[in-house]
């Protein structure tokens, strides 16, 4: 969830009465709803991200169904089912009927949802474009299945429950079918204005990227024309759960601290700094306050914006230990390989997971994977698979740090041809950044900012993977040359046998040919040029 947007909605509502509908209309470009083609991707993306996060939270192997039907012109019915733990009866209306309600705002933990805008925005979009409320089914283990039909009261930003009933698992209304029966999980259904497309910016491509990064999930897509695509599960191992981490003073943003001072129950500023931030001890807290010339005796919620800014500035000039990095959850080289193999069926794959490191007080970790040859198209430029916290990034490729890092690598050194500084040929390049705080270039959260430490890590990882791929290609080329040479010489020997016998005036042509063939065989060595 975006802190800036939340702040804005708080601020705006303080100044004057503003309906959430008006707010949504004003910010829909930031929320991913600027046109019908993108909106449906955003709706699916929000739901899928949430579902995957929820499954991982409770260590459930995710099973997701995305069902899309077209009705009317430019209208779609979207249904997304998951097998996560499910929501209790009290939470359901809030999650889907109150814009910007979330559980992740105040903790720093690596999760997909961090960059999402909340499923309630989708509900709002549905309501504004088709006038129809959202239907939610949710079932927890051993509990009955609840069905809610919820709309958002746009004046109060409160859920309005239109229907609330229990669904019998045997009834027709129970969200499930032959190949999908669940004991726990959530299903949401909504009607939205949408344009279902195929191609680069499409649900299909979004799910394909998701499948690469989450090979432990099974995802099924049913397209409007009835076509079913299954993204199979190829691993039963979930990546390790990320730990929580407090923010680091060198990387935290002003807005975040402003909210933190309001919510803190610390009695003094010094204890606020020590309690709410990582790597701040008593000595450093006192040093910071001294430099900021702020009296320690006050309660944190008495600090104003300028004073917080002074504290952050002072912290920049104070030496603090780097944050711990055990809070990150990369998917690991093994899963990267599995994901690439199952979705792309390449001839060669390699993956590198770098050690965690830190930019501006924020721990982050880079993973890259290369897939080459096989079913990947031979012609043209490479394809990029960009991920931030396992979520595919489909838009704004050219302003993303991943693209810059790829272009900084000299691919020709790894036997990959290049046009300008872009590699060519049957190649997919996967780049994943895992961080509790991914620096995006804009509120739209579609491209990662070009920070030196991040780009450097990506480049190093790409080079390491590139060397492995280069060695493979070279070995393959050598073997091909040797193979061709052997075939050629074997044939030539057949011409030479009789010629040498005739020229020397003695000897049996066949015997001479055999001698030459022996020599050719001895010379053949696919490992050597």
């Amino acid at each position, binding site marked *: 969830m975006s802190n800036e947007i939340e702040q804005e909605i708080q601020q705006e509502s303080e100044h004057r009465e503003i309906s959430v509908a008006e707010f949504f209309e004003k910010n829909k470009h930031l929320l991913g709803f600027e046109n019908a083609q993108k909106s449906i991707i955003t709706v699916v993306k929000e739901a899928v991200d949430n579902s995957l996060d929820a499954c991982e939270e409770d260590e459930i192997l995710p099973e997701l169904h995305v069902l899309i039907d077209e009705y009317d012109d430019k209208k779609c019915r979207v249904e997304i089912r998951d097998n996560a733990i499910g929501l209790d009866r009290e939470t359901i209306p809030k999650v889907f009927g109150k814009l910007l309600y979330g559980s992740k705002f105040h903790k720093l933990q690596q999760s997909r949802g961090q960059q999402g805008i909340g499923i309630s925005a989708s509900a709002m979009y549905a309501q504004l474009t088709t006038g129809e409320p959202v239907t939610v089914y949710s079932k927890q283990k051993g509990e009955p299945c609840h069905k809610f039909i919820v709309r958002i009261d746009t004046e109060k930003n409160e859920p309005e429950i239109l229907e609330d009933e229990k669904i019998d698992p045997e009834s027709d209304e129970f969200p499930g079918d032959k190949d999908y029966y669940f004991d726990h999980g959530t299903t949401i259904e909504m009607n939205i204005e949408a344009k279902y497309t195929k191609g680069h910016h499409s649900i299909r491509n979004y799910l394909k990227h998701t499948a690469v990064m989450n090979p432990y999930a099974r995802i099924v897509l049913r397209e409007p024309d009835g076509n079913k695509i299954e993204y199979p599960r190829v691993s039963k191992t979930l990546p390790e759960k990320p730990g929580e981490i407090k923010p680091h003073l060198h990387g935290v943003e002003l807005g975040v601290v402003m909210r933190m001072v309001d919510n803190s129950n610390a009695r003094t500023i010094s204890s606020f700094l020590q309690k709410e931030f990582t790597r701040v001890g008593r000595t450093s807290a006192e040093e910071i306050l001294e430099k900021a010339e702020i009296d320690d005796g006050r309660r944190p919620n008495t600090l104003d914006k300028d004073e917080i800014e002074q504290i952050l500035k002072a912290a920049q000039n104070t030496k603090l230990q780097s944050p711990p990095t055990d809070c990150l959850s990369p998917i690991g080289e093994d899963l990267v390989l599995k994901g690439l193999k199952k979705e792309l069926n390449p001839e060669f794959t390699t993956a590198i997971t770098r050690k965690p490191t830190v930019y501006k007080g924020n721990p982050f970790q880079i993973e890259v994977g290369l897939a080459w040859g096989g079913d990947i198209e031979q012609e043209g430029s490479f394809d990029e698979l960009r991920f931030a916290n396992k979520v595919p990034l489909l838009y704004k490729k050219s302003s993303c740090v991943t693209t810059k890092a790829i272009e900084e690598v000299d691919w020709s050194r790894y036997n990959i041809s290049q046009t300008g500084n872009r590699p060519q040929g049957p190649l997919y390049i996967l780049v994943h950044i895992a961080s509790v705080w991914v620096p995006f270039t804009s509120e739209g959260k579609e491209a990662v900012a070009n920070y030196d430490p991040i780009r450097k890590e990506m480049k190093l990882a790409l080079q390491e993977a590139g060397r492995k791929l280069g060695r493979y290609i070279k070995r393959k080329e050598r073997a091909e040359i040797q193979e061709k040479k052997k075939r050629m010489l074997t044939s030539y020997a057949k011409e030479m046998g009789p010629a040498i016998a005739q*020229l020397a005036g003695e000897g049996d042509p066949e015997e001479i040919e055999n001698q030459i063939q022996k*020599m050719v065989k001895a010379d053949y060595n696919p490992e050597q040029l």
Partner: protein
Amino acid sequence: MPKKDFENDEQTVDRLTHLGQKIKNQLKDPEEENLTIETKVRSKSNVNYDKDEGRLSLGDRYSTRKFLNISHARKFMQTLMVASKTKEFVNEGRTASIRELYYQLKHTVPGLDENTFEDQDESDGVVVDIETATGAIREDLHLIAEAKGSLFGPVTINDSGDEINCMKMGTSGLNIPSIVDHYEFVECEADFILVVETNAMVNRLVEEDFHKDHNAIILGTKGQPARGARRLINKMHNELDLPVYVFTDGDPWGYYIYSVLKSGSMSLAFQSDRLATPDAKLIGMTMQDIEEYDLHHVTENLKGKPEGSGGPTKDYKRIHDVMDYDWMQKEQWQKQFQKMLDMGVRVEQQALAANSLEFVANEYLPQKIEEKKFLD
């Protein structure tokens, strides 16, 4: 016709057999991991100009062709195929054209999508390789090329038992074959040999009875002289003791023809002793002729761009190339080329017709010979 046996045949067979034996021994030798053939390097870097002899000769640098080297393998196979086939020709007393040789050997290599020879250039090149590798020349290998060039004049030649009187050849002349080593000169009343670059000029001189009136052997080369013509000029000069005058266009291409006749060519430098005639002199066209015979209005501008203004290209480039050869360093030749560059023109043999058709036969050539006005 009787089958041809040349005096070198025995030696040629020995040389070819030696090559075969060498390969066979390499196969037998367990130490030997590759098959090799040595040939002399035939590029400009291995060509020397012998000032005393006045001829080009091939240096001593060898290149080794290796069968297991992927870029040599095909040529290696081709060399053995051609060598083996020519040995067959020599043994059978047959001669074959280099085109026939190409067709005899051309077929699809079993198991590969390629032919033993894709075009005649490939087999022609291999023939020259075998010449330098074995020391047996093309004629020894019983290989003939297309006849090129014609001959008129008071000389009688015995060719394989038939006597040919070259004075009685009408307007056609003797068609010069590629092999002339077996020619015997029965009778000769000529005073000199006139080598002529263009066929048109040969026709003019024959029509004017130049060969009769001046006891001249007229030998037309039809442009760049073939091996047969060069060998015949060398042979007549040495055996009949006749001076050789070369008559070409006044341009870099014509002067290069003269240079090849006189000193030999780079690609056949290893045969200069048989093909070059160092005593040959150039009778015309010279740059001075343009003034002497008032030919300004019938010159042609040189083609291409001169040095310094985008060049040298085309004619200009050729002038600089020929000017730079070691064997063209005599002052009179440098002057000739410099003048050509300064004037920016070339002059053809036929330009002499500007005066009158018979002018070349009755005045231009006799005058030059009388006054010994030659370039050497």
